[in-house]
C-alpha cells in the first residue's frame, strides 16, 4: 500500500464524489455513509485534510481502503480516476451477491 502514494485531497474529493457519500462528517478522520438502492450499506473512512495534500501512512491507507471493501489496486483506480462510480457500484453488487451465496 505504501507504494500507492495517494494523497488525502485526492482520496476525499474522488471517493466522496464517486460514491456519492452522504452525511460526510469530520473529526480525527472523515466519514461518509454509502448507500446502495437507497439503503445504508456502510460508513466510509477518509483521511482528514488539514490544509495539505500530504502522503498518508500505509496503515491509514489500509484502513481507508478496507472501509470501501476494495483491494489496493482497485482503491488506487478509484482515487486516481479509471474507476467510475458505476464501476464501483457494480463491484459492490458482485461482492454482496458472492457473500450471500
Amino acid at each position, binding site marked *: 500500500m*505504501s507504494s500507492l502514494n495517494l494523497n488525502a485531497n485526492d482520496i476525499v474529493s474522488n471517493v466522496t464524489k464517486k460514491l456519492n457519500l452522504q452525511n460526510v462528517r469530520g473529526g480525527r478522520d472523515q466519514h461518509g455513509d454509502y*448507500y*446502495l*438502492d437507497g*439503503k*445504508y*450499506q*456502510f*460508513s466510509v*473512512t477518509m483521511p482528514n485534510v488539514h490544509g495539505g495534500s500530504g502522503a498518508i*501512512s*500505509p*496503515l*491509514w491507507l*489500509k*484502513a481507508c481502503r*478496507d*472501509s470501501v*471493501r476494495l483491494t489496493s489496486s482497485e482503491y488506487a483506480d478509484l482515487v486516481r480516476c479509471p474507476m467510475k462510480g458505476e464501476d464501483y457500484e457494480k463491484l459492490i453488487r458482485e461482492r*454482496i451477491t458472492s*457473500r*450471500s451465496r
Partner: protein
Amino acid sequence: MLFDEKVPATQGIDFNMRLQPSGSTGTASVYDDRMLDQPTGWSRMPFGVEANIYSMMLQLSADLKQLSEEVRLLKEELLSRPLVSSVLLNDLSDARLEIAKSISIIVEETDEECLARWPEVNAFGIGSTISEAICNLKENILDLYFDISSREKETLGEIALETLGVMETHIGVKK
C-alpha cells in the same frame, strides 16, 4: 593450505604448468583465465590448490556474495512490514455495552504507528502505541454499533445488516 592464506607473489604458480598432468595423481587441471577476473578474497590461486578446486572456490565466493545481498534485501523488506498479531478483546470500556463473546482483533505495528482492527465489521483504530490503537478501535466499535442499531432495519442494506448481525453476536447491552 588454508583458502584464505595469501601467497606471496614469488610463490605464485605458473598457471601454464597446471595444464600438465599433476604429478602423483596424474589428473589434468583445466585453467580458465576468467577466474582471475572474478572478485574474490584470494589475490591469486593459492599454492598447491588444483585449478578446478580454485574455480569452485571462486564460484562459492560469488554465490556467497549473492546470497548475502539477498539476505540483506529480505531483511529490509521484513523490517518495513508491520508486525501482525491477534488479540482477544473482552471489554469495550463503556457503561452501556459489554462483550458477550470475545472479539478477535488484528493488531499491526510499524515503527511509526499501530493499527487495531476488527475485520468482520471493518472497524479500526490507529494510534502511536498498541494500547492507543485498541482504545480508538473500541470508540470506533461503539460509534458503529450505535450508528447502525439506531437506524430502522428496513433502511439497512445487506452489508449493514450483516455487520449488525456480527456485532450483536459479540456485543450485548449491560443490565
